[in-house]
């Protein structure tokens, strides 16, 4: 499984597809037990952010790339012109970009902060970056 890329339209229903593919590939590289759950949750969290960022109207795709060079590495990207930031600041950038998208109907705001909390708690290696080419989340489970 050296290189698999999943590209999904920015629709919430497809986040589950990304989770399923992630779980399948994680199992393939030999991850098991609780770690599988963590991969599923973390990839789902990152894709939820990415899908919210792109917005449902858009034709742009969210990309999820898998590599198995050393354990499992998953990179989630969504296009968008965002201020450059990293880590918590990047999560805030995404939250600000997404804010107002789904909240005018009285729905609860997307919890970008808790997404980041989940990611950093569950994933050994995490980088969240925003910039002129959008959102880039890298998740790594070293072997």
């Amino acid at each position, binding site marked *: 499984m050296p290189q698999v890329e999943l590209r999904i339209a920015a629709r*919430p*229903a497809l*986040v*589950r597809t990304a*989770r399923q593919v992630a779980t399948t590939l994680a199992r393939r590289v030999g991850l098991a037990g*609780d770690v599988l*759950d963590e991969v*599923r*949750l973390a990839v*789902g*969290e990152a894709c*939820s952010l990415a*899908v*919210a960022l792109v917005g449902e109207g858009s034709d742009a795709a969210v990309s999820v790339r898998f590599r198995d060079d050393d354990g499992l590495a998953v990179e989630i990207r969504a296009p968008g012109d965002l201020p450059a930031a990293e880590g918590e600041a990047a999560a805030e950038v995404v939250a600000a970009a997404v804010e107002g998208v789904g909240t005018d109907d*009285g*729905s*609860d*705001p*997307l*919890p970008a902060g*808790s*997404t980041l*909390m*989940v990611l950093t*708690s*569950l994933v050994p290696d995490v980088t969240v970056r925003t910039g002129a080419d959008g959102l880039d989340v890298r998740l790594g489970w070293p072997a």
Partner: protein
Amino acid sequence: MDLSLSTRTVDDRTVVEVAGEIDVYTAPRLREQLVELVNGGNYHLVVDLEGVEFLDSTGLGVLVGGLKRVRAHDGSLRLVCTQERILKIFRITGLTKVFSIHDSVDDAVAAAD
């Protein structure tokens, strides 16, 4: 597995039994259910998560939103959950301090507010 929701009344509590996956796709349905109950005057809710297979932070957001709504009416929203993998997500996000989490629906219904 998709989300399934069922609601019943136990004593003066409304129990919402949730099964399946609560994620960015299905969470809006749970939110609608909670909003409807609160709008219908049900301010003491028990959300039974024992049948939940997957819960992400969007799902947590909906539960926190439900809590805020019932609290605006001096109500309560208690959770039922004994699944370690689900509890872990509440722990990670510090929400074990925000929610009362019970081992059974009976416990949750019996709990005083």
